[in-house]
């Protein structure tokens, strides 16, 4: 019998039952909820007259809709306040742990899960947010679900789910200076397109992936969903175990050693077969940026926007529509384009390592006058660490201001909207039309590229400014 993939091992170990000709009943170890996609699910179980089945397996925090200034005051926006209050109310009623706005553990769901050691190798995890794939960086099967599925988990700790196909993407070799995890994933999505991963669960492997820190691995898995994939994952290794050590909810002492022994088994067998397998060379990857309105429309920062004759006929309409929205011309230089906003934050790149990278780069430099720069830490803990490490000070000296934690301009549900027609370089994950505010234009890039843009005011290849 052929060996099993890591994905199969975890998935199969969580199948409670199979429906003939239908989906599997999958048991969920950890369920994360936030204020936007959960209220209708709670209303659903209440309508059925049932209670939450395993409240201890769900953790809640408000993130999507929260203001990033004056968090100690009542939320001004009435609807947002109502939604956040509803979450508090639901959690109290059903005995679910909530890290509310003032709690030191609060922050973006996908930042706090790993940071607190809630996320662990071998788990199944879901959340009503597509970037739940982030947690796959620890060798867990983690994916986003809709509100009906949130209701299923609340009611039964299970969901019905068809099993995806398996894909492995190997990135071998050494990344050159100035090339980061964000560039790897933007490169991969540019290669396979925004729908190339649909129907698959991706395992990322290869020496370039192994060389990444946990933060970098989270960035890669976070954006796996932008290829249409159900999720992404990376087998746990020493880097993972080292990161887990001492985390609030990670096993401790002997329990930790025992856990490591178990986690070490979590890898794809040598003879396992994937439904699709792709190989890339790390040496081909350079700092990347998107020019269009889906995350697959990315190129090297140093290259031009493609010409129409380089685009496949079937994609031409999408390409033209995207350029029209962005106000760009086919064949344009990307370097030198004037930028208005820089946003560093989100569950893709709002972790301490990202803030550190930006601070390292801007130390002793000043932001350009034409740039408004928002730096939004992914969690209260990231914010605290940034203060302790002197990152906040460096950023402020360079003319940046740190806001308080939340999803912020990643989806612009709160007041952090990029104004209409303005061009933003963003470390988040989506450049859809209007994603960062009605009429806002977004170019996705790494924190390093964003920092270089902030100090020069224009799109620039960050490598030209590296010492």
């Amino acid at each position, binding site marked *: 019998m052929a060996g099993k993939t890591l994905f199969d091992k975890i998935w199969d170990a969580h199948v409670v039952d199979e429906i003939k000709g*239908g989906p599997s009943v999958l048991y969920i170890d950890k369920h994360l909820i936030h204020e936007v996609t959960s209220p*209708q699910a709670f209303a659903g179980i209440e309508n059925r007259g049932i209670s939450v089945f395993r409240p201890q397996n769900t953790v809640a925090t408000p993130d999507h809709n929260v203001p990033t200034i004056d968090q100690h005051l009542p939320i001004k926006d009435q609807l947002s306040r109502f939604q956040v209050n509803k979450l508090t109310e639901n959690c109290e009623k059903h005995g679910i742990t909530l890290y509310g706005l003032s709690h030191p553990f609060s922050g973006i769901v996908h930042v706090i899960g790993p940071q607190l050691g809630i996320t662990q190798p071998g788990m199944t995890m879901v959340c*009503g947010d597509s970037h739940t794939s982030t947690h796959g960086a620890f060798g867990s099967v983690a994916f986003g*679900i809709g509100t009906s599925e949130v209701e299923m988990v609340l009611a039964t700790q299970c969901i019905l789910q068809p099993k995806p196909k398996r894909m492995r993407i190997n990135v071998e070799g050494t990344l050159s200076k100035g090339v980061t995890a964000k560039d790897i994933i933007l490169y991969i999505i540019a290669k396979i397109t925004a729908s190339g991963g*649909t129907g698959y669960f991706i395992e990322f492997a290869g020496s370039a992936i192994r060389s990444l820190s946990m933060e970098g691995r989270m960035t890669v898995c976070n954006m796996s969903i932008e290829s249409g994939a159900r999720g992404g994952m990376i087998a746990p290794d020493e880097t993972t175990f080292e990161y887990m050590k001492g985390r609030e909810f990670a096993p401790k002492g002997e329990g930790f050693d025992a856990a490591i022994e178990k986690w070490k088994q979590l890898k794809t067998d040598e003879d396992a077969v994937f439904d699709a397998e792709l190989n890339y060379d790390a040496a081909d990857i350079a700092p990347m940026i998107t020019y269009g309105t889906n995350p697959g429309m990315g190129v090297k920062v140093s290259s031009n926007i493609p010409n129409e004759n380089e685009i496949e006929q079937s994609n031409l309409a999408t390409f033209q529509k995207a350029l029209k929205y962005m106000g760009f011309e086919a064949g344009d230089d990307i370097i030198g384009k004037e930028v208005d906003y820089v946003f560093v934050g989100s569950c893709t790149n709002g972790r301490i390592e990202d803030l550190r990278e930006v601070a390292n780069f801007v130390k002793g430099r000043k932001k350009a006058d034409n740039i408004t720069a928002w730096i939004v830490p992914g969690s209260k803990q990231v914010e605290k660490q940034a203060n302790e490490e002197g990152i906040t000070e460096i950023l402020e000296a360079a003319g940046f201001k740190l806001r308080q934690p939340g999803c912020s301009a990643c989806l612009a549900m709160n007041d952090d909207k990029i104004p209409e027609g303005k061009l933003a370089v963003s470390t988040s994950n989506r450049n*859809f039309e209007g994603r960062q505010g009605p009429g806002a234009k977004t170019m996705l890039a790494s924190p390093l590229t964003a920092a270089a843009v902030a100090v020069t005011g224009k799109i620039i290849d960050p490598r030209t400014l590296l010492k």
Partner: protein
Amino acid sequence: MSKDKFVTIESSAVPLPIENVDTDQIIPARFLKATTREGFGENLFRDWRFDKKDQPKPDFILNNDIYSGEILVAAKNFGSGSSREHAAWAIHDYGFKVVVSSFFADIFKNNALNNGLLPVQISEIFLSKIFDAVEKDPSTQLKVDLENQEIILLSNGEKESFEINSYKKECLMNGYDDIDYLLNIKDKIEQFEQNRV
């Protein structure tokens, strides 16, 4: 909790020949602040449908009276992006029962099926035939027959079959939902939990 049963639908269609329609276009994030499932139809395709002054944009298809019906026909890779189920609610709330495309994003497909909205995936070729037919004659009728898993262009009888897993098909046809199913096997779930420790 039972939902409406899905019956065979015969209707004209609204064509949306745009590829990669993401869920941020279907329902922008700023309209996700509600805590109930109702009323999202009002803001379906909000930024394509209305201008800054909330006036309907005449060139957007939903504002064109000659197109109507319970079937939305979209170009490939429909529903990519966010997991927000509000996208499926908005389409359903607006009055659509079926979305036709040559390719759907995974989460959207699940969300649609969980809300009595049938995603019908067909070939590029048949999709462009439907677009052509509807463009020539906006009153063109389509028939979506879930039982036989067929979509038929009634003007010339051309048809294509579509896939749906038998479990979901049964749920839709009978108005069952997944939670009913899961609640019924709670013993098995508890057994599973015990066997693990």
